[in-house]
């Protein structure tokens, strides 16, 4: 990857504290989302990844600290203007019964439309382009709730793309999908960053996919950022142990050079070399 001079980040969080009535979650998070790159947020369940994403996308107000978009406090800005620059897809969105793919994607145009002023042609162009890019045009008139998980997720991503924002935050866009579908989606998202200059921040579950596709990794635990940097720098056995409490060896993909982790099974959990009975199945590590 050519090392382009680092552009000044447009979205930053400074000393963020945030949470819900019942509990505090973020405990002093500083983060600058790298421009034109694909950043992946990793961390165990409940570590505050979604909370951080919501705070950065101004759907949750921090109790202390601030989020800046283009140098201004995001919570003081007009929410519609923010939506013209920053799109977010929350974790596990659900579409109402009967909503068609085209209607869903069209919702992405909301921040660009006004009651008295609409650019129908530009809207149609953006919707068409988003559907073509995510390859959902073939079932544009079908109900979103009648599609497969992977198709549905592509529709939601198409909605965010139709919003035509430079900054895109996605919360677990690939969870519960087949590996092949996850890979396809990540290819698509990575092209958005590298070929279309968009800035992406994703939460992912799969460590190896994150290491393979991310330009930068951010690792969280207990509402704090433990470490961040390129996969080569931070995707280490020490960090995996420290963040996920995972015993793993980190190898290098001989072709791409990206790090891969292989969990080290504890004694006894390891399948024996000669199975006692032919019916014992070997579970794959995924």
């Amino acid at each position, binding site marked *: 990857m050519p090392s382009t001079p680092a552009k000044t980040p447009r979205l930053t969080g400074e000393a963020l504290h945030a949470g819900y*009535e019942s509990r505090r979650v973020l405990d002093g998070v500083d983060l600058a989302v790298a421009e*034109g790159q694909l950043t992946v947020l990793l961390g165990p369940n409940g570590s505050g990844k979604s909370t951080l994403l*919501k705070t950065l*996308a*101004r*759907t949750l107000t921090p109790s202390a600290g601030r989020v800046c978009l283009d140098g201004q406090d995001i919570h003081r800005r007009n*929410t*519609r*203007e*923010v*939506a*013209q620059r920053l*799109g*977010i*897809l*929350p974790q596990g*969105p*659900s*579409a*109402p*019964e*009967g*909503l*068609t793919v*085209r*209607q*869903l994607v069209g*919702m*992405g145009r*909301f*921040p660009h*439309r006004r*009651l008295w002023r609409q650019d129908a*042609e530009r*809207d*149609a*162009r*953006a*919707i*068409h*382009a*988003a559907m*073509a*890019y995510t390859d959902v045009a073939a079932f544009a008139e079908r109900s979103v709730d009648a599609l497969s998980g992977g198709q549905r997720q592509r529709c939601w991503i198409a909605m965010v*793309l139709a*919003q035509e924002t430079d900054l895109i935050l996605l919360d677990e866009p690939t969870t519960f999908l087949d590996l092949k579908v996850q890979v396809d989606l990540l290819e698509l998202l990575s092209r958005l960053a590298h*070929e*279309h*200059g968009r800035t992406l921040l994703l939460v992912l579950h799969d460590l190896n996919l994150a290491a393979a596709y991310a330009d930068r990794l951010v690792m969280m635990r207990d509402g704090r950022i433990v470490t961040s940097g390129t996969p080569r720098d931070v995707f280490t056995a020490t960090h995996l142990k420290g963040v996920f409490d995972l015993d793993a060896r980190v190898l290098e993909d001989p072709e791409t050079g990206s790090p891969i982790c292989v969990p080290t099974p504890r004694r006894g959990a390891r399948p024996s070399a000669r199975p006692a009975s032919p019916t014992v199945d070997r579970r794959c590590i995924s």
Partner: protein
Amino acid sequence: MTHSASLNQTGEGTTDAPRARYLRIATLLGLLLLTSMGLSLALGSFPTSFVEVGHALVTPQDSDIAFIVWELRLPRIVLAVLVGAALAVAGAILQAIVRNPLASPDVIGITSGAALAAVAFLALFGTALSIHWLPASALTGALLAALLVFLLAWQRGISPSRMVLVGIGLSAAMGAVTTLLIVISDDAAAMYAYVWLTGSLYAAQWQDVLGLLPWLLVAVPLCLTRARHMDAMALGDQVAQGLGVHVLHSRLVLMACSVSLAGAAVAFAGGLSFVGLIAPHIAARLVGRGFARLVPTAALIGALIVLYADLLGRVAFLPKDLPAGIFVSGVGAPFFVYLLHRTRYRSG
């Protein structure tokens, strides 16, 4: 960096089939409503022909038929249409906000608040004080109940599901007090209260029409300006906020529309509650998603339901004039069971 071709293709002309379908259905329903109003105008305890009615309509002079048409039937028919439309739109808004097809303005205490206030009015003043004050007190009751539900459910913002829970609880409490008041009030007042609770357009006057109309003229256009916000909120609060919707603000505006429409309708016609449940449903079946299309369609269907329920009540059991609410509930209750059944199968 430049965007590649795939993100910059020109949009092809998309056929807008749902829009054409909506226009067709709305036109049909509008025509159906007009002819039904005409039919309703010609039917009643006093036999009148279409020709006589037509004649009386254009020459509103002091003939008996002109009096029947202009002062008895027409205000009642127009009020039925307005009440049906108001309840249907109130229901459409509420179902969209709560994201539950089984919700109706009842669940946030509007009907029971209006009922309690109306019955309290009847119990306190009997039928002695002018009955013209009944709608005003019922409306006040509806608005106060909604406000109370709202305040009790408020928790750094408003959660629709919490509001429904509070509404159901408060409705039950108010229902108990209403029953108590009916039991202790005298027979005439109790009888009147029962008819009011069932929902009736008996003895509707132009004054009632003029009382209800302004609410519709303000609330319906206002909720339509928020139609796209509503469509976005159907995707969930977080998605809507991400798209730039001011969720709390929109919800307050829409809630106020729903409450005032339902409150005003209930004030003039009593508890015709099922209309707010059924009409938006049928409308959604006919024209699909999209709040801007749902609202007018639901309004037309609600108007038709109340119009026919009232017509049945007026002419089917002559010489008795039965409350329209009986027929609305007669159709509504089985429909509700059907909805419950269907939602259970969908989610199960």
